[in-house]
């Protein structure tokens, strides 16, 4: 005996086989459904069947041992995969970083390059300052100069431009509002006038401090003088927006005073470090001939300089 249910009248009835019409309301056969009763036995059998499936394979995916082995194997596979990918792509990535730094240096020289590698090698040479003189640097190209400057390796990039003039590019690092700043300042041969700059940052505020990475801000340095009256003290600096006066000051970025201060400190201190240890041959000759012809006056300046030092 099987149970049937009529979908029209909703009644259930028992019969040996599916009847041709409902014995209660007379609805046709396709309105009648067999009702499968889920007896306790059947439920048990079904449960056993599903449980038996993983047991057949001999694996219990929720067991402790399985979980631990699964996790370990997965981690090892992933570790090998990542190590492989990282080491396979490392040379290309490093080349990109080197290329980027070279492009930054070229940008500070106001050069828009399409073939960075070739242009850099043709125009720029990487030198070290040792005992006030320049020596060729023949190690690997450095991509960050903060550590190098701290370690006393002062890199100076000497660029020979198309028109035959020589420019010096000074690398520098500093701190902005949220993170590190870095930049390259290109100076004329006598190291008195700014020829071009490049600045960038790790994480300054987008739309405010981040504007130091824009050409508009960087180009406002062009033509500014490094020194004011004192030929040994860097006077080039960044002021508050709209407050710049004279040849030594550059307007900061509106709404980003702290970032502008960071750039000011970086430029002044960075240049000072280089000026202290290196003077190009031309500049001192020029100074003694034009600016300070009298020896007495020169001494006077020296004494004036010494006085505040003693006060400290």
């Amino acid at each position, binding site marked *: 005996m099987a149970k049937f249910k009529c979908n029209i009248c909703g009644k259930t009835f028992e019969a040996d086989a599916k009847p041709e019409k409902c014995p209660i309301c007379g609805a046709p056969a396709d309105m009648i459904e067999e009702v499968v009763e889920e007896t306790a036995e059947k439920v048990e059998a079904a449960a056993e069947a599903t449980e038996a499936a993983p047991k057949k394979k001999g694996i219990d995916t*929720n067991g402790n041992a399985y979980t631990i082995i699964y996790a370990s194997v997965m981690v090892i596979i992933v570790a090998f995969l*990542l190590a492989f990918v990282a080491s396979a*792509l490392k040379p290309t990535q490093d080349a990109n970083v080197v290329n980027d730094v070279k492009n930054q240096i070229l940008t500070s020289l106001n050069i828009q390059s399409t073939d960075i590698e070739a242009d850099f090698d043709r125009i720029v040479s990487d030198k070290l300052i040792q005992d006030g003189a320049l020596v060729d640097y023949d190690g690997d190209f450095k991509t960050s100069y903060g550590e190098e400057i701290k370690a006393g390796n002062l890199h100076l990039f000497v660029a020979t431009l198309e028109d035959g003039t020589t420019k010096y590019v000074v690398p520098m690092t500093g701190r902005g509002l949220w993170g590190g700043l870095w930049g390259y300042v290109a100076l004329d041969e006598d190291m008195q006038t700014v020829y071009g700059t490049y600045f960038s940052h790790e994480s300054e505020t987008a739309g405010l401090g981040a504007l130091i990475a824009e050409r508009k801000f960087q180009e406002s340095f062009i033509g500014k003088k490094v020194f004011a009256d004192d030929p040994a003290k860097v006077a080039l600096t960044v002021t508050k927006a709209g407050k710049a006066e004279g040849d030594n000051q550059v307007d900061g970025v509106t709404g980003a005073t702290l970032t502008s201060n960071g750039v000011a400190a970086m430029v002044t201190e960075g240049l000072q470090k280089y000026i202290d240890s290196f003077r190009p041959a031309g500049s001192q000759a020029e100074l003694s001939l034009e600016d300070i012809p009298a020896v007495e006056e020169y001494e006077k300046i020296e004494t004036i300089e010494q006085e505040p030092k003693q006060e400290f």
Partner: protein
Amino acid sequence: MSKLFSKENGAVFTGPLNINNPIAVQVLGICSALAVTSQLKPAIVMGLSVTVITAFSNVIISLIRKTIPNRIRIIVQLVVVAALVTIVSNILKAYVYDVSVQLSVYVGLIITNCILMGRLEAFALQNGPWESFLDGIANGLGYAIILVIVGFVRELLGSGSLFGFQLIPSSALMENGGLYLHNGMMTMPAMALIILACVIWAHRSYNKEK
């Protein structure tokens, strides 16, 4: 083939693009949508990265779904996603360096994008690899569409350019004596939120008519 492109799979694919869009309807993955849309190019790269990562993590999880111990399934999902994100981030650094500099930390943060974990947990653990692949692609594209719309508006109004190509001549700018001024607000993340809200508004009222 007919099974691969059946009606159910069609629904799996078109759902996330429109009526079940991860950003416009489910409002997932907003953080990165605000951060990387100030220009069109990073928005597209970000959209494609998320699409690729969602699709492949869906496929991988779907393939191993029967072997994953239930108690550590979230960790397994995270490891798969993290591995894929690291690979994609390495590839970006190697082949599109300037874009990877622009995207900075946001590529790494794809790991925490809710869309990914949501799809793995809700879809890939219950469905086969092909359906999961479609679901991943569709959700990634649904995310990418919104990013591109927001990026388009922000770059056009904020800097007057598209893909970095200047559309508004510099002589028309106010600083050069013209009459046009870029809308600086558009470059800020707050404006992305407002544009996103407008997109959601338009999307909902359009779907209401249906």
